């Protein structure tokens, strides 16, 4: 059974404050029936070095990805995962992780593909919890398996495929959330060292460059509504009615931006192109722009 949203003045500024909880709220609610706390990190071993007492681990690589199809798990696999983690369909799931909740936001986005209704982020993530001197444990969290229904993934609302991005070029604003060097196509190339596995550097024409971490404050929490509006509305030029597509390298950093645009700023139609540069930079017959300019959609100049 889902629990009530945290009443927190700091979150009231955001469009959907019920999507955030504070570290204190987690400390107060972990172990409460109907609440499951999930840690999701970039580093597959970090949870094992110490986690919030009572938290379970969901790993993006081993739990959420399906290697044979290079896709996300299907409805049955997700149901099996949820059962194994002790999560019921109507539970409140609170996710936290390393690196300003970068991977936690990715997990939240995948939970949303399966229509899990109440999934929230712990603002500030793992680093804030540790900075506040709160308890970590290496004790295994006891889990009672649940009956979670097999619900098919709905990719139509918050996920964009390559074909969607191609069709949207020139009409739908794109946000490239990678580093400036990845955006321009400049390579930090050194002889003899393996490079990122893409054939071409650069960005999707028309995409604005907004590195994902600009939405995060020093302590890993999200920046204020005012600061976020200044970046995405004033600087990038997004309008309230715009559809938006965000992308990065494999869709993880852009999940963070998806969360910001959807839940903090209240844009209604934001999609994450998870194929991202790993797909686009290797694809045949797609346009690429290099340098600092956004570039134009093919045909737009004619």
């Amino acid at each position: 059974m889902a629990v009530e949203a945290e009443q927190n003045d700091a979150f009231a500024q955001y469009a959907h404050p019920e999507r955030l909880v504070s570290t204190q709220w987690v400390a107060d609610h972990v172990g409460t029936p109907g609440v499951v706390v999930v840690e999701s990190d970039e580093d597959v071993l970090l949870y094992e070095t110490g986690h919030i007492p009572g938290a379970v681990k969901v790993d993006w690589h081993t739990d959420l990805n399906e290697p044979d199809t290079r896709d996300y798990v299907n409805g049955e696999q997700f149901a099996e995962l949820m059962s194994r983690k002790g999560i019921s369909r109507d539970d409140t799931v609170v996710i936290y992780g390393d690196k300003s909740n970068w991977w936690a936001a990715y997990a939240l986005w995948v939970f949303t593909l399966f229509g899990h209704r109440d999934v929230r982020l712990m603002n500030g993530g793992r680093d804030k919890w540790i900075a506040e001197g709160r308890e970590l444990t290496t004790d295994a969290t006891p889990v009672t398996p649940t009956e979670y229904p097999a619900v098919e993934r709905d990719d139509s609302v918050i996920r964009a495929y390559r074909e969607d991005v191609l069709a949207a070029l020139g009409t739908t604003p794109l946000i490239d959330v990678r580093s400036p060097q990845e955006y321009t196509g400049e390579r930090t190339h050194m002889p003899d060292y393996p490079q990122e596995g893409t054939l071409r550097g650069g960005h999707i024409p028309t995409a604005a460059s907004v590195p994902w971490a600009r939405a995060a404050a020093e302590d890993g929490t999200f920046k204020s509504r005012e600061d976020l509006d200044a970046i995405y509305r004033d600087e990038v030029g997004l309008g309230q009615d715009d559809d938006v597509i965000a992308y990065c390298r494999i869709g993880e950093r852009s999940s963070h931006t998806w969360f910001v645009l959807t839940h903090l700023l209240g844009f209604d139609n934001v999609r994450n192109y998870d194929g991202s540069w790993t797909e686009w930079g290797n694809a045949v017959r797609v346009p690429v722009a290099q340098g600092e300019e956004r570039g134009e959609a093919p045909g737009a100049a004619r």
Partner: protein
Amino acid sequence: MSTQDLPEQLRELVTEFHEVPEPDKLQLLLEFSRSLPELPARLGEHPEELEQVTECQSPLFLTVELDGSGADAPVALFFSAPAEAPTTRGFASILHEGLNGLPASQVLDVPDDLPERFGLTKLVSPLRMRGMSAMLGRIKRQIHARLGE
């Protein structure tokens, strides 16, 4: 997985990882991450003497010293990585245990596909595995430089 072309101390590590059942492989990697030796004080106070492996997703610094000169000189490896990066530490620790003390020529002969031989590719993302490859590449490059090649 072939281990014939590996030095003995490295071969034992590859075998160890393969004999551990899948669910325990991460635990084994975690144990390695905990056993990565600390930097000696003389290097800890001079971090600028270490080379950053930028291909790793977390900060990882390493340096190589040769005890003597020539291809038979034993290699000493030094790594520095933060506690918040246990996977990176684990990889560094594997390389330390597998390569430290070997003659320079043997380290240079270690096959470049070494990281794929530990059976970890299902558990650890490709980008991280490339981090381990990059560590090995930089170790070899530093050895070449020390040998004056």
